[in-house]
């Protein structure tokens, strides 16, 4: 007898050996091709590391004061844009969300609302912002419209899914009392989805602030525009100040929205 000690080996992730090898080789081949097509200008990169160090220095000594007017204006635009867009977006997403719920909306309304929500969700905020800036001119108003549209896409979809998931017995119970469509909506549907709607709205506020910092890069106002200007002028210490402010506000809104969501759910 040979030393037939039975040793346990972990089962592989993919049971079929041929498929395993094919997938592994395919992944390697792709990685090779992708890395080969990567053009890197090493001279530029090493030159850039010096600048990178200046940026790190800027982070250690952020300059809040010399561009404080620009920063305050950008911050004000971002915050007002976030508030108005969230309120308008939530207000609009409620009718669209109700319209896109299969269990309470008639078929034609359902398809119209679904199509609109799908359209609002397809493109990145930045791409939508480019068009709104071209149509409505530079500034916070274009940003407001962008954020409102994407809020409708986000909340409308989630609200519709929530309404589709509600407990039907409560709807039946309210209907059995002789309630009309609006009363069913108010007492059976609203009562069930309201906590999650509030939670999602607060969450969306959080997202909208983050996005407001991005769409400024394409001209839709807000703190992103300030950041873009600071980078264009190579003022890394001011840019670092803007970034630190963004991080602080994002952390604050995330904390508040987490708190509110725990309270209502």
């Amino acid at each position, binding site marked *: 007898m040979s030393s037939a000690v039975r040793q346990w080996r972990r089962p592989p992730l993919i049971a079929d050996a041929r498929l395993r090898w094919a997938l592994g080789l395919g992944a390697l081949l792709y990685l090779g091709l992708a890395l080969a097509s990567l053009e890197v200008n090493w001279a530029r990169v090493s030159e850039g590391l010096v600048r990178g160090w200046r940026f790190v220095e800027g982070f250690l000594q952020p300059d809040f004061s010399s561009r404080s007017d620009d920063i305050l204006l950008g911050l004000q635009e971002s915050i*007002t844009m976030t508030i108005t867009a969230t*309120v308008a977006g939530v207000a609009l997403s409620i009718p669209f969300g109700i319209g896109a719920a299969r269990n309470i909306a008639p078929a034609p309304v359902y398809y119209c609302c679904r199509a609109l929500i799908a359209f609002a969700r397809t493109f990145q905020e930045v791409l939508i912002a480019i068009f709104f800036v071209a149509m409505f001119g530079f*500034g916070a108003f274009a940003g407001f419209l962008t954020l409102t549209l994407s809020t409708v896409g986000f909340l409308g979809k989630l609200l519709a899914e929530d309404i589709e998931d509600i407990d039907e017995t409560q709807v039946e119970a309210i209907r059995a009392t002789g309630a009309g469509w609006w009363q069913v909506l108010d007492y059976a549907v609203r009562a069930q989805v309201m906590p999650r709607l509030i939670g999602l709205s607060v969450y969306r506020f959080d997202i909208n602030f983050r996005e407001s910092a*991005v769409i400024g890069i394409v001209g839709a106002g807000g703190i992103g525009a300030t*950041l873009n200007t600071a980078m264009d002028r190579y003022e890394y210490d001011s840019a670092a100040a803007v970034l630190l402010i963004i991080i602080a506000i994002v*952390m604050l809104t995330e904390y508040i929205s987490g708190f509110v969501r725990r309270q209502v759910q």
Partner: protein
Amino acid sequence: MAVHQRAEVRVWQRRSTPAQLLLWCGWLLLVVVTVFAWQLMTRETLWVFVADAPQQAADIGARMWPPRWSYMERLWWPLWETLNIATLGTLLALLVAVPTAFLAARNTTPSVRLVRPLALLVIVTSRSINALIWGLLLVAIIGPGQLAGIFAIALRSIGFIGKLLYEAIEEIDAGQVEAVAATGASRAQVIDYAIVPQVAPALAGIVLFRWDINIRESTILGLVGAGGIGLALESSLNVLAWPQVSLILLVILVTVLLSEWVSARVRHALI
């Protein structure tokens, strides 16, 4: 819930009167804040531009149609770049995010007081800043091109993957960890045999989800010079070549839908 006696009839109300008042004050405050914010925001708005928006939209729409199909032959390479930015960026993020998540999870971190807050700080910083802003910084530092895009995607994804993974690690079944530890396994073996198998499906799902998001994000990174199809979009927008813009938007749409389909199929196969 409150019941009121009103002229011999007991009336049911959902809230007591003070609670009702408080609620109304809350709504009033929301309205006041919104109106105030609206006024601040639109102070600088030029309503002339807003008023002629329908004409502008019709004008742009007319210029965009039909798309310039022949431009497609110059889009294949940027499209390949976009795919690489998203994929290599996700892989790079995975390399950093997995150790960070293990350092951040309460049950695997070597030190709750020192290492955990540091790892959480890395995750929060990475999450707070959008890939486009990372791109803006990296293009200024290491120059325009694909490399900046890959790093921008990676830096943003570290926080995303790290956060979801460390939450998954904290939610694992402690019984399996204890069982493996009871066999005399070392710390590394416990992680390898008890923790990794439990979080692997979650990790696969998270990475796929992020890859899907990264495909979307990498299509616009070119706007700040970080490579990919956004670069073509930026140059077409700069020369107002609207037929090219509409073709690029169509290509982006198809790419996004395809990536969504692929990630849904792979997720279905894995989990």
